């Protein structure tokens, strides 16, 4: 509880002692938004760690070999992630639901096991030293870009593009009948999501002096973690996955008191959220858990059959 107590009693001290954690929250928030964009357009893609790896290795290697400034490396990594996103997105666009998830996991694992763990330039599985990392200096950039990314995603869902995405998510066949170019909009969402993930990957790689090619970083485990952001927070609104990311990132502190049993307690807690709020923390009905009972609620009406 010291953790949260300090947040209120000594914000400056909190900021100074937990900068890395705050940076990680910002990065996970961007990843959550990347997940949100594909889910909002009806695509269950788990490709984010692959695009993160593209962004991370591009920016780190450019700094290592060509001594480019960090900003240039980040931009290049982000763009390359977008290009890879287009290349991966085109062939898998026809896949839906769990089949798309499996295909994107295939991409993630092929990139990590097949390329990153084998190329000499990426360290052949031993990892990569990144002397140009600046763990504390990037915090402002991370927080600003986190806010910008969330804002962009939020605004996009409100316009013509967002309506088209929502229509595609609900019913592709009906969306076609309204003149919506379904394939183009799905690809657009996929690429946008790849760009966000690539950018987050580039930022994250500079938090640490060592780029670890492990499964929890660029593998399926990470993909599942990012998916959990969205499932836990709810994927109907952009804030859902972001709240989910905040939650997951802070779990070790929230359940600090559980000591050695922390994994059991936090696991049970996550299951409880899924059971009691299947639509996510910020799902339909809004913030029902923390909202006082007298607050006006959206009218709930029973869905009709047929």
């Amino acid at each position, binding site marked *: 509880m010291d953790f949260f107590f300090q947040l209120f009693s000594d914000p400056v001290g909190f900021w100074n002692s937990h900068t890395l954690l705050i940076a990680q929250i910002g990065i996970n928030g961007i990843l959550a938004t990347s997940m949100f964009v594909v889910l909002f357009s009806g695509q269950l893609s788990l490709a984010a760690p692959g695009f993160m790896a593209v962004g991370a290795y591009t920016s780190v290697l450019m700094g290592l070999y060509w001594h480019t400034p960090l900003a240039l490396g980040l931009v290049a990594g982000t763009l390359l992630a977008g290009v890879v996103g287009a290349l991966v997105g085109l062939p898998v666009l026809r896949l839906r639901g769990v089949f798309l998830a499996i295909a994107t996991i295939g991409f993630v694992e092929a990139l990590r096991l097949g390329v990153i763990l084998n190329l000499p330039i990426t360290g052949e599985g031993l990892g990569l030293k990144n002397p140009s990392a600046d763990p504390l200096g990037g915090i402002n950039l991370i927080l600003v870009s986190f806010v910008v990314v969330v804002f962009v995603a939020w*605004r996009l869902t409100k*316009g*013509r593009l967002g309506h088209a995405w929502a*229509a595609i998510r609900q019913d592709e066949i009906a969306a*076609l009948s309204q*003149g*919506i*170019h379904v394939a183009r909009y799905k690809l657009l969402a996929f690429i946008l999501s790849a760009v966000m993930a690539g950018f987050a990957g580039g930022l994250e790689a500079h938090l640490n002096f060592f780029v670890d090619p492990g499964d929890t970083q660029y593998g399926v485990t990470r993909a599942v973690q990012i998916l959990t952001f969205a499932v836990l927070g709810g994927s109907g609104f952009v804030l859902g996955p972001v709240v989910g990311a905040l939650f997951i990132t802070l779990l070790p502190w929230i359940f600090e008191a559980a000591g050695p049993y922390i994994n059991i307690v936090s696991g049970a807690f996550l299951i409880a959220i899924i059971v009691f709020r299947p639509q996510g923390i910020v799902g339909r009905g809004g913030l029902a858990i923390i909202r006082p009972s007298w607050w006006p609620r959206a009218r709930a009406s029973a869905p*009709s059959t*047929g």
Partner: protein
Amino acid sequence: MLLRLDSVQRHFGGVHAVDGVSLEVERGAIQGLIGPNGAGKTTLVNVLTGYVPFQAGHAWVGADELTGLPAFRIAALGVARTFQNIRLFKELTAIENVLVGMHTRRRDDTLAQLATLPFFRRDQRGRLNEAHKLMDTVGLASRDVGDRPAGTLPYGDQRRLEIARALALRPRLLILDEPAAGMNPSEKHRIRELIERLNADGLTILLIDHDMRLVMGVCNRVAVLNFGRKIADGTPEEVSTDSGVIKAYLGSGGEREVRSAPGASGVDQAAEADEVAGSGRPSVEPENAILEVHGLTVSYGAITAVRGASFSVAPGEVVALIGANGAGKSTILNTLSGLLRPDYGSAMFDGLDLTAAKPSAIVRHGLVQVPEGREILARQTVLENLELATWARQSGRGAQGQIALMMKRFPILGERRDMRAGTLSGGEQQMLAIARGLLAKPRLLLLDEPSLGLAPQMVDEVFRAIEEIHADGTTILLVEQNALRALAIADRAYVIETGRIQLSGSGDDLLHNPAVRRAYLGG
């Protein structure tokens, strides 16, 4: 000429779903498209709107050729459609559904969104106003239901909302695929008014529906499809008295060919009126009924499919329930089998309350259904299908004897015993389904559309088999669209129209009653 089709063709494997259909729709017309179940109407619409590729032929809307275009381009050309099984964006609000319909004609504001430029707010207000207006046009109170998720609206409102969404495209041609399906008479009346109002505003409409009163009442011209071919095209009067159309709808009498189909062209109108009046007399209900149904009312959510049906079946009878597609026939059978539960009414089968008993108990009590579409296990062999049917009842020799008997009754099944059931022809599959039903030792056998999708000779064979089973003493309740066929073998029959039993009588009586034609083709 707004819409022109030239020998449009689409086959699925060996099924000629649409087989060279040509059609011309005048600008400003309401064109009807009708045909029995499986005639290819929806396939034709799907080809026309780009959901199923053309195999051959061409289509134009105005000067624009539709052939080979993807669905979203055809929509952008001004061809709007609704879907037979409503396809709304269920979690979006009603208003948002209509806004999505404006997709093709709103300017791309993706970048403007980021800055929330003033023009965007103005445009958005204009679109909202238009969406509200469109909802009001189709008779939805936009202020009340506009913000509700579309999936939570009542069924009839969902149908209307789908039309509003289609209108948001500002279409040149509106294709309505069964807009009145599942609606009650007053809702149907409102849909009819809506269609007439839209047409009066200059919209060309292609209407597909099974409700002949609606189609014949509202359309200028009607085209009739059967087995993928256009068999008639003309004014509603011409089409509803065309002998080919009547045959397509009522079926042929087979070996007992009926010389004059009920109410075929040439029948004196006055005589017809007399006969209709005469048919009001109550038919003789049996006293020792094995199955008695009273006031059965069954709904699917908001749709009431069966409204107060009462009928009975005596031991040893063949009783037919006939009526057009969507009349509620299968719903009645599924309720008797315990698969659906009625809202009201009673159904007693030899002392067992069918409205409360479990489906398995109903089968054990001797009421066995051969479902529509046959539902055989396609990957299992014929023998395995039959063995599974005896599984629950008995083991060992008894079962083998039963199966041997069945193979004697249906020799074709004996010949095909080791073939996978899915490779059998439709008629053979139907025999297998009936044999499987008989293995459950029914005291009352429910047959749901045994002739569905079969070629004429196979229909003959299936009906011959039914007559043989009946001769062996099995009581049969038969549901059929092929009315003349069913009436020819039935002791008694009930005619169902939109969930109500309209007529009843002996098979022979109804065979010559012009009101039967009305139940199918409207008045």
